[in-house]
């Protein structure tokens, strides 16, 4: 990462314009339009209500245009020098609320807790399918983030039959650090950030939100649990409540401070750890789950694509200070 100190800009130069309003009468994710989505996989709804009917609080449905599907076999095969397999996996959409609210920042803490619980339930369920190796939980908010135009808060889960490249790299990096230091790199990172303070945005009930030292994008924010665990699903109910508070606070600070920017977040958690020959024994110790939030304020250009280096136009110390000072 390159932090451009000489061409650095001020935090307030990233404040954007407010989003346009849209026609919500066509939203397929609102209560009463359940017929517009494929049948639900999971829902939080009272016993008195019926599946795919109204009265729900949160719903998970398969994606209307899935890239991966649960049916069929992988059929790994070669095509000349290329390797190919079928698109087996799962692609689900978490409809976070029955109200037409766009930004997760505007949901109540209780509602966000339900979303966080749902992630956990879905990951545990998908793990039972032994063909799958990883579940990626992420959110695209706003059109600059790759989302479609529908402004109804939702996140996505994609379960893949292979471990994705960037996940493998992160795990390998954490493992290398552990082999050398016999400590978790993320635990060390949290300790150093709390000692230095200048990049900390929030420190609350077991969670820290920081602007990472090597930020790739301006206002990139990570939320890490102080308690070491490699797996998102290991959190207890109390922790999820605390995470919900921190997540809402960070998203609100971004929304208020930067005028509702587009953003992505991704939950980084360990792959499924099924016992088999060559099982990675130290992963429980060397990896540490966390959430990475990336506001979409700049565009990737040729330099970033070509090198894998990122030019960050703003030092993380400045963005952390800016976000600390945003009143919510």
């Amino acid at each position, binding site marked *: 990462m390159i932090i451009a100190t000489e061409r650095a800009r001020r935090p307030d130069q990233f404040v954007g314009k407010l989003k346009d309003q849209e026609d919500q009468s066509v939203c397929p994710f609102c209560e009463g339009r359940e017929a517009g989505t494929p049948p639900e996989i999971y829902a939080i709804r009272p016993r008195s209500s019926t599946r795919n009917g109204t009265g729900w609080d949160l719903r998970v449905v398969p994606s209307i245009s899935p890239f991966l599907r649960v049916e069929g076999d992988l059929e790994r095969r070669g095509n000349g*020098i290329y390797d190919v397999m079928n698109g087996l996996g799962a692609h689900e959409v978490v409809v976070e609320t029955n109200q037409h609210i766009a930004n997760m920042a505007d949901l109540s803490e209780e509602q966000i807790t339900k979303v966080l619980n749902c992630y956990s339930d879905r990951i545990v369920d998908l793990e039972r399918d032994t063909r799958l190796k990883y579940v990626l939980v992420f959110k695209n908010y706003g059109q*600059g983030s*790759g989302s479609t135009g529908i402004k109804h808060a939702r996140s996505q889960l994609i379960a893949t039959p292979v471990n994705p490249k*960037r996940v493998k790299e992160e795990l390998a990096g954490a493992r290398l650090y552990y082999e050398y230091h016999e400590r978790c790199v993320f635990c060390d990172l949290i300790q*150093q950030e709390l000692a230095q303070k200048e990049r900390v945005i929030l420190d609350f009930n077991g969670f820290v939100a920081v602007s990472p030292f*090597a930020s790739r994008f301006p206002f990139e924010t990570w939320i890490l649990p102080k308690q070491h665990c490699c797996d998102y699903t290991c959190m207890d109910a109390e922790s999820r409540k605390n995470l919900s508070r921190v997540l809402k606070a960070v998203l609100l600070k971004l929304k208020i401070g930067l005028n509702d920017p587009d953003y*992505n977040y991704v939950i980084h958690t360990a792959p499924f750890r099924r016992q088999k020959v060559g099982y990675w024994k130290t992963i429980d110790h060397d990896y540490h789950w966390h959430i990475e939030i990336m506001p979409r304020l700049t565009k990737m*250009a*040729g*330099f970033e694509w070509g090198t894998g280096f990122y030019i960050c136009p703003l030092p993380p110390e400045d963005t952390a200070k800016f976000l600390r000072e945003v009143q919510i």
Partner: protein
Amino acid sequence: MGELRRDPVVGRWVIVDIENPKKPADFGYEQYIPQGGLCPFCYGNEFMTPPEINCFRDPGTGANTPGWQVRVVANKFPALQIEGDLDRRGLGIYDMSNGVGAHEVLIESPYHNKDIPELLEQEIQAYLKMCCLRAADLKKDSRFKYIMIFRNYGSAAGASLEHPHTQLVALPMVPKNPLEEIHGSRDYYNYRERCIFCDIIRQEIQDKTRVILENKYFISFCPFVSRFPFEIMIMPKQHSGYFCQMSEDEISALAQILKDTLAKLKKVFENLSYNYIIHSAPINGEADVEYYHWHIEIMPKLTQVAGFEWGTGFYLDSTSPELAAQYLKAVKD
């Protein structure tokens, strides 16, 4: 159902939608329409840029005045700086280094509104020749291990100035992405004793379905493992590690295929923004050239990279390279 395809060089998995691939009309992309205005790269404004490093200009015209065809200047807002030694240091668990390197801007032509397809072939030849000259010159500095030439065209591609230009950076280390390609192609070479890119070219010529254009020295095609819709590769058919070692004939052939390929792309997608990157072998002893093969990667800005791609390095291509090649081939000149 989508199909998972693995990049033979870097091992990245990509999901390609072969069931319902998107057609060109399905993409709602950000249109790029130049606005004009005061431009530091136009004739008469040479004083607005740092002094020229190299230039092709009419005889009798002075440095930093009009009368040039291609002009190279230092980047006014460099991400890296050429002076000083590399100073690597630690801060707790973090590693830091100062940004030593060169960052140059190549103004491709005096025309504010002419993209490569609108230039004459000889103008493109001069531009490519200048790219080669600058790369060959920077290669002499032993502090540099990698030279990257790239171009951002249009606002969606991250271009901050309208006047078409190419950038060149020389770096004191081989960055992550080229390093992955180098490791991948080295492993393949150690196993098969052949260059993987030469094998790719052979298979693409045989399969034909993804080839867009071909001339004596070059081939342009939509890669089997495309990360983005309508991604394009241009490769020299003869094995060569360095872009800057092209002969005169090869430069002419590249000018032709680059112009024609981009013209086709911009006929399918009007007012398109795109990036291209020239991938060339590392310099000053960082890699052997028998297993690396230089090439140009063109990335149209039709979609936004979403959270899924960022988080995993796993890309979703909503069209298939076979369909993309079919559309590009069908464009009439």
